[in-house]
């Protein structure tokens, strides 16, 4: 065999090695969907990963299983469009605590607790010059949104001392 063939064999060997490694390393479902290499070139099973990501906020229907009275009360009040989890899902370790272990018994993954701080109510009800003062989500049409100046409206006292937040009225 002529010496001129030796580099050709080396090149072919390298190509075979690269293709072989590619077959081993690249997952079988890695492909360009619809022939779109620009935007859809991916591991298709990754879509399943995001579809199976746990759903954490389960909404009123979940809470209703044990607290139908509270759900009815809220549904009849000005807070009817506020989800339970808006106020009761906690990130603060001190305020966590639900009498039943929701995670083990119901597969519910959020930490539930009670937050009585003014800061929570101020998120919607603190008066800001540019905060919209009309509310549009009730069937009866636009209604005024109740806002207070937190520096003047009974500073230092928790809102729930006087207000029933589930009924949106005074206690």
């Amino acid at each position, binding site marked *: 065999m002529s010496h001129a063939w030796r580099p050709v064999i080396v090149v072919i060997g390298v190509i075979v090695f690269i293709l072989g490694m590619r077959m081993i390393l690249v997952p079988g479902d*890695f492909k360009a*969907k*619809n022939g779109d290499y*620009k*935007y*859809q*070139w*991916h*591991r298709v099973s*990754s*879509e399943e*990963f*995001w*579809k*199976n*990501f*746990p*759903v*954490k*906020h389960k*909404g009123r229907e979940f809470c209703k299983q044990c607290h139908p009275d509270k759900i009815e009360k809220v549904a009849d009040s000005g*807070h009817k*469009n*506020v*989800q339970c*989890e*808006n106020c009761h*899902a906690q*990130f603060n370790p001190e305020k966590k605590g639900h009498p039943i272990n929701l995670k083990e018994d119901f597969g519910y993954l*959020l930490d539930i607790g009670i937050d009585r701080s003014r*800061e929570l109510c*101020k*998120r*919607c009800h*603190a008066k*800001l*010059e*540019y*905060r*919209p003062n009309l*509310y*549009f*989500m009730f069937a009866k049409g636009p209604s005024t*949104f109740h806002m207070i100046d*937190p520096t003047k409206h009974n500073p230092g006292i928790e809102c729930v001392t006087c207000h029933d937040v589930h009924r949106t009225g005074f206690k």
Partner: protein
Amino acid sequence: MELTRRQLLKMGLLSVCGTVIPISALEIFKPDALASLVHPFSKKKRWAFVVDTTKCMGCGMCAKACKLESDIPFDTEVQRTWVERYVQLKTGEVIIDSPRGARYGFTANDPQGRELKDEDVTKGFFVPKLCNHCEKPSCVQVCPVGATYKTDDGVVLVDRKWCIGCGYCITNCPYFARFFHPIYNVADKCTFCYQRITKGLNTACSDACAFGVRKIGKLYDPDSEVFKIITTQRVAVLKPEFGNEPHVFYLGLDDIVK
């Protein structure tokens, strides 16, 4: 073959013309491409989002819900959706801020920590932001390993197992919607709550919004609220000059919004 001067000029001109016409100019012959220019009336499966900024109160419940739902440690400085506050003073100065991504809400008139008097403010409003799930996502184009992609229904996702954490996509998103996940150290972003919308639920942020600001819907479904708003009202997108064709449509945008 004899080639006359006339033939040479003719054929030369023809081949020059042929090479300079870009392939994209021929797209006018593709009905699919034409239809996608008029997005709401396209039959293509596509999710879209509407944000009505005129109703936003800046409570930040969306940001809180998103962060809990998407499992990003609550006190880290990154999140998938956030709310920005724009305050313009009578001097013309614009102050923009988003303290802690608004996950604790806006509770005082203190943009950027400045004490403002009510009479100094000429206008102010809140703008919720999230990933725009572009039709031509520039973040996907730059991924060197194919770890981020657009699904068939138009949602841009990240493959956590395949991402090498180079950060090209993070710098290439004109909307600053991407960040490094503090635990997995891969690129992370809003997924339109893919786990929820594929099960027929709303996204966590639109569920948490008590003011009807955020709406997710099918752009190809004429009965969806999103379709109705986009086809009948004055909607705008953020930074259209980038040509990404974003699919988060805003009502009540102002030119001070960046």
